[in-house]
């Protein structure tokens, strides 16, 4: 059905169709609309979930953990400081192998009180064992949320999934949304280690130095296995609903000499920059990274890569750039742009490509010249 929706409402719409037994959440700008919408669905009876209006994000994730371990579907949403506040529990959720789905509306971190888009919040969760997908349209926010449940709950995965959408740039804009009848696309949840009072077990008790690494290894193995589950889920989604998604979204990459790699809305706007560059005779392409965990194998051989990081790891560099260099062993032109919602246009993106200096780092708005 053709609708118009914000990114936030698209996420809520997907959640409504997946009917989690428990949604526990705490409001934060710019995520608020997601939880308001879900609360409204619940109070109107459209959504048969229990909505727990917790007193903090730490408790939001703890409540999702407590609910999830009983074997039911759970959802939460947050942003920025909220995500950081629940950091202890995000690690717990992954280690406890609970398929919690969370929307994170990417926003910068204080101080100052900046509420605009930045990816550093989610990237600080990079090493927790969560799967992470970054979306670029309202439609994709909806589709990715649906797929997130199927991927998280798949018994080869059983890890939480975070769906990331750019604060305001995507969370608050209105775009067309085509909702689907999810049907049996996401099978009923079956958590093999759900609490059973008839078969009492202790969860996460004391473990020794000769044991803990096994659980870590299993998370890693499951993340590796998740690649096939994600592929299958995305392929099935395309067959069933007609919209195709991959680990990356490649645009004019085939014959490109230079490729922009970015995430989220900048990754989408980069396509417009590519159109401009192509008109100028520059063989450019763009590769929008959708999945950060598992980190996909990127086909960038023989291409110059311009990486746009809307994030930063202080003392090291753009996080995406660092990840890409680690995989490709090639120099990139690392552009730090869009922090705290800094305005970056497709013209700026085209300029980064025109004036690239491989092996260097460039802070947009800081350095005098690109």
């Amino acid at each position, binding site marked *: 059905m053709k609708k118009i929706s914000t990114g936030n409402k698209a996420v809520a719409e997907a959640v409504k169709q997946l009917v989690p037994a428990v949604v526990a959440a705490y409001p934060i700008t710019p995520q608020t609309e997601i939880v308001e919408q879900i609360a409204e669905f619940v109070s109107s009876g459209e959504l048969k979930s229990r909505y727990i209006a917790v007193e*903090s994000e730490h408790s939001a994730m703890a409540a999702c953990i407590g609910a999830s371990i009983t074997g039911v579907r759970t959802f939460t949403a947050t942003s920025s400081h909220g995500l950081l506040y629940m950091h202890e529990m995000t690690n717990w959720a992954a280690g406890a192998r609970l398929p919690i789905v969370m929307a994170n509306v990417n926003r910068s971190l204080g101080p100052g009180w900046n509420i605009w888009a930045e990816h550093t919040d989610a990237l600080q969760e990079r090493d927790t064992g969560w799967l992470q997908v970054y979306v670029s349209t309202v439609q994709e926010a909806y589709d990715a949320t649906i797929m997130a449940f199927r991927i998280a709950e798949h018994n080869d995965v059983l890890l939480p999934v975070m769906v990331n959408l750019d604060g305001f740039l995507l969370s608050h804009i209105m775009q067309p949304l085509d909702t689907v009848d999810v049907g049996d696309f996401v099978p009923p949840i079956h958590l093999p280690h759900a609490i059973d009072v008839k078969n009492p077990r202790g969860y996460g008790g004391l473990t020794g130095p000769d044991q803990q690494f096994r659980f870590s290894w299993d998370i890693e193995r499951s993340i590796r296995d998740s690649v096939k589950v994600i592929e299958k889920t995305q392929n099935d989604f395309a067959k069933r609903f007609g919209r195709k998604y991959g680990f990356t979204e490649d645009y004019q990459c085939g014959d490109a000499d230079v490729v922009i790699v970015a995430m989220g809305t900048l990754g989408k706007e980069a396509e417009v920059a590519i159109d401009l560059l192509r008109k100028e005779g520059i063989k450019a392409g763009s590769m929008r990274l959708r999945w950060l965990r598992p980190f996909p194998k990127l086909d960038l051989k023989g291409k110059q890569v311009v990486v746009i990081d809307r994030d930063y790891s202080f003392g090291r560099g753009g996080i995406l750039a660092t990840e890409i260099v680690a995989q490709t062993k090639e120099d990139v032109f690392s552009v730090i742009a869009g922090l705290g919602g800094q305005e970056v246009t497709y013209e700026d993106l085209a300029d980064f490509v025109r004036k690239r200096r491989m092996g260097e780092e460039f802070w947009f708005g800081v350095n005098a010249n690109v």
Partner: protein
Amino acid sequence: MDTIPEIPKEEYILKCTSACAGCSDSLALRYVLKAAGPDTVLVVPACCTSVIQGIYPNTAFNVPVYNIAFASAAACASGMSNAFRAAGKKTNVIAYAGDGGTLDIGIQAMSGAFERGTDFLYICYDNEAYGNTGMQRSGGTPLGARTTTTPTGKTDNKKDIDAIIAAHDPPYQATACAAYPQDLFKKVAKALTFRGPTFIHILAPCPPGWRYSTEKSVEMGKLAVKSGMWVLYEREYGKLTIGAQSKAAIKKPIPLEDYLAPQGRFKGIDPKTVEILKQRIAKNLAKLTAEEAAS
């Protein structure tokens, strides 16, 4: 005194936990679980109880136990209770936390869960310090008690968590003591008959923490009650009832010194501090007596 026939023989704490010898947390838990029965899940944050279960892949606890990070027992239990109720299950959800996890780091989550009317029982077993990490002061440590972070005695009063809970107006709250297992059993059984959040605050004397010899754990609990330092009561829909043992103590308390003297943590306590403690006890007993009379 005689045996207590109404208490089930079933043990849900199997032989044997890794609790210290003479641990009154273990003693309390035996009766908590006897009262709760097998259709129960314990949610346990970081505390002595997270350790005494034994080491993976074994546990001494014969009910499901969900171990969770320090600050989040009540929040986790809140999610669990909602999930069980959504599935139509009556399973008891008991958050079982120490004084640190209740009065200090867990107070926000607990307050939230009570405010939201979560259908669960929250039990704080209070050994008046961070026992698991080697006895650092907590909000539950009484004035004058030495801990590793109050080496000359705590200069602040014990936080009145029961008053804080009372402010949330739960249908049922009670205090108990590991030295009175029958009383504890009855209170847990009763708490679990209510819908909504209920709270039981158990005084759990700790031999290594309080520095007395292990055989005195029960005796120490009784001295706490007899001196008025710990008061046994129930508050049901706001109506306060002081327990018989505490009523006796109000009429004729034993000297506070009889309770303090056997404990190494009060060794060398300043007489002025003892005086303040006595005044606080008197004030608390008067307050509770007045409340009982009024309700």
